[in-house]
């Protein structure tokens, strides 16, 4: 179920005076089962990019292939693509509309034309998957806390059983524990369901601990696409485009400069801790 972007360009408001390029010559391959972080600040093109991955937008030029089929093809079944590539928008709880949580989660699978039994089964499984308590199933989603609402909204997409799950800033507006919970949940989804996950964020700190690959967008182009260690090694360039490496990267860099025998490439808290302890002979 791989996605391939081949020389994708996207221009907003083409043919008007306000035309501007949102994506410029983007080439990406997204194979099965990866956990990817997509990083870029506001206006870097990352939102436009993810909308190309499930056919909400189609490239002005270039092609997006899903399982070898061009999504711009008039015969291409976009509805199927959208069920296979699940997209959770920013503040997804703002799209809840049903009278109770369970019904809301049913919306997605129902649109796929599945039999009622299957719809309900999927909704049940999805709500369980996001760790949602049975007792809240039939409560109005509008009475829940922010974190709980977000779980319901994520369940609404998972219930479609996508092979690729894209989440746009899933932790925005949550408190530290809420952020940790949601990120932990996403990691579990990736590990247990074996699906590809693309985590969109403007914070390196959020994604560094979880992802195996980082794509950095800047001004509509792919600036970096590599494993986290290699991307963060470019911390100076990252700063220039208004992003920063995780805090621990800086600590490690400074320690290495000060003559500590540490590997300056550590990117996660765990790695940094072990490196420093090793340097002090405590490990």
């Amino acid at each position, binding site marked *: 179920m791989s996605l391939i972007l081949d020389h994708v360009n996207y221009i907003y408001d083409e043919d008007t005076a306000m035309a501007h390029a949102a994506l410029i010559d983007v080439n990406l391959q997204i194979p099965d089962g990866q956990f990817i972080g997509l990083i870029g600040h506001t*206006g870097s093109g990352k939102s436009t990019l993810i909308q190309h991955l499930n056919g909400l937008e189609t490239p002005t030029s270039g092609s997006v292939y899903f399982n070898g089929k061009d999504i711009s093809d008039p015969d291409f079944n976009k509805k199927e693509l959208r069920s296979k590539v699940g997209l959770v928008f920013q503040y997804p709880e703002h799209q809840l509309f049903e009278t109770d949580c369970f019904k809301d989660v049913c919306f997605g699978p129902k649109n796929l034309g599945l039999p009622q039994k299957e719809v309900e089964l999927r909704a049940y499984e999805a709500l369980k998957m996001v760790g949602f308590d049975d007792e809240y199933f039939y409560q109005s989603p509008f009475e829940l806390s922010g974190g709980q609402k977000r779980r319901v909204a994520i369940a609404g997409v998972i219930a479609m059983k996508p092979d690729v799950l894209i989440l746009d800033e899933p932790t925005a507006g949550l*408190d530290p*524990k809420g952020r940790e919970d949601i990120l932990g949940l996403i990691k579990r989804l990736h590990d247990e369901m074996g699906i590809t996950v693309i985590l969109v964020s403007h914070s390196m700190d959020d994604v560094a601990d979880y992802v195996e690959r980082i794509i950095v967008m800047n001004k509509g182009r792919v600036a970096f696409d590599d494993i986290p260690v290699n991307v963060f090694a470019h911390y100076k360039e990252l700063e220039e485009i208004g992003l*920063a490496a*995780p*805090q621990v990267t800086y*600590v490690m860099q*400074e320690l290495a400069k000060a003559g500590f025998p540490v590997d300056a490439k550590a990117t996660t808290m765990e790695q940094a801790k072990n490196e420093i*302890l090793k340097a002090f002979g405590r490990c």
Partner: protein
Amino acid sequence: MIRTDNLVFEYIRRDEEGNVEGITRAVDNVDLDVKPGQFIAILGHNGSGKSTLAKHFNALLYPTEGKVIVDGMDTSDGEYLWNIRQEAGMIFQNPDNQIIGQVVEEDVGFGPENMGVPTNEIWERVDESLRAVGMLDFRKSSPNHLSGGQKQRVSIAGVIAMHPKCIIMDEPTAMLDPNGRKDVIRAARALNTVEGITVILITHYMEEVIYADKVFVMDKGRVTMEGTPREIFSQVEKLKELRLGVPQVTLLAHELKKNGLPLPDGILTREELVEELKRIKNVANT
């Protein structure tokens, strides 16, 4: 500047038919005292009562029990309502939902217009306020064309134009990206140090509070911790229990200490951490 005495705020929950379901105590016996010129941070997880508390500071909500005194004026006393709202300005979370004007400068002028400031002076105030937050170049822009961080800075300018003594910022950065967040915090700190305006910052981004003079931590409507950032962030485990965290560097230092490195508690910046590690190394070498 702002003082609360045994502040309690309760609201009545009702079901769909309007029957009383119960009473929720959103703010429970809060006593705090903010001195003029201080930079105060209030931390707390979602639903801890911190926003409800903040709305008491400029008389958008009134205490069920207890008192809120702003610059010597009791907020329950209707007579001072407009003085209090002018002296204690408020910035909210959503950048879109607090800009009224269709042009940046007109929005900044909105507060002074309401206060009945003469036209010439409004223009002076708009100029100086936009300059203070670094948004003077955007004065003729439409707010819809600004980034989140820029919009929040316009909102801050709108409050400064009312010449407040105190600004209460209710999660002003929650909806912003890291760059916008930095700009807003920088603007808030500049107001505090340059203009001497008292700032009360409500947030759950731990990195934003390390420069505060004093931090209050709220949970279930109560103030459960208070102290300097260093004192607060020394208690990593307790903060975690309260659904909060600590800055990443503080956490790293904490983990290292747990594993036997003789680091002090409450390290806040990476410079501090590096210095401390160097010190330990030198001690070990001699």
